[in-house]
């Protein structure tokens, strides 16, 4: 194929490597603020007696909140022009495909997280594939992240994807 690849060699070399490691403490007030912003008042996230009634040792972190517990801190002056922090994405630039959009996310949850847990996320690049779609060529990048607690127990595994298109 004579068409020049959209994927530069530097990005291609990252497949299979760890591109981001981030850690943070799971905090009940933070997950409760998140749940309140979703209008999600499930007593498993708020009521210890209720959660114990179902076999948990205390209230649990909502599964979808876990991904935010590991986010870092970015100075205002270090934000991107669009206001996003770029924190912990392990993101990659594709100079020949600069238009980026989120693809999707797929997560398997193994164990609940509790208040005070120290969670570490390790993100690897699973694949970078160039494809031909209805609106032309694009690059599909897939990352795989593992979330483990302070006992090295696997809490969740997440696959996320991004689509990058030529300008």
């Amino acid at each position, binding site marked *: 194929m004579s068409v020049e690849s959209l994927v530069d060699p530097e990005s291609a070399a990252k497949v299979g490597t760890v591109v981001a490691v981030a850690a943070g403490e799971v905090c009940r007030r933070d997950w409760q603020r*998140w749940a309140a912003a979703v209008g999600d008042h499930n007593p498993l996230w708020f009521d210890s007696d209720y959660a114990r009634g179902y076999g948990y040792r205390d209230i649990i972190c909502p599964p*979808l909140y876990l991904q935010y517990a590991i986010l870092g801190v970015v100075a205002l002056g270090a934000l991107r022009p*669009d206001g996003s922090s770029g924190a912990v994405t392990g993101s990659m630039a594709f100079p020949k495909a600069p238009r980026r959009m989120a693809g*999707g996310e797929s997560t*398997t949850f193994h164990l609940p997280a509790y208040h005070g847990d120290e969670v570490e996320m390790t993100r690897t690049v699973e694949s970078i594939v160039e494809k031909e779609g209805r609106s032309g060529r694009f690059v599909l990048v897939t990352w795989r992240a593992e979330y483990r607690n302070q006992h090295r127990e696997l809490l969740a595994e997440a696959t996320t994807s991004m689509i990058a298109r030529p300008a």
Partner: protein
Amino acid sequence: MSPTSSADPTREETQPHYEDVESGDEIPVLSVSVDETQMFFFSAATYNGHRIHYDKDWARDTEGYDNVLVQGPLQAALLSRALTDWIGGAGRLVAFSVQNRAIAYPGQRLTFGGVITGKRADGLVDLDIYCMRGDEVLMPGTATVALPSKAAP
């Protein structure tokens, strides 16, 4: 995990069990119209500074949208809320997968739901899930939940 006396009796009555559900069953639909206050609190709770969710000039002039956009992760969170509301305290969300297909603006009526596509051994139930605006699917996906059995655990 069977409920004890401390569990909320009103929630206990609505606890679905593995034996009660069949392929084709729909879960209760959650209907939400997201406003800008909710979007602000969700951005704050997720450390999301992207201007596209609060800066109308940026959303229109730089990114080409008609207005600020409802966060994709908020759509996902509302969809998971529809699931965890349904499965009750004895249910467990095992897997959750969504694709971002279309954007939503504040003030639009969004519906979140799902339909059971299969039952597996050991209490696992598979679903197709969705966030819709009218007849348009904004966020399709799949989920797996574990439901308690009526038989002793």
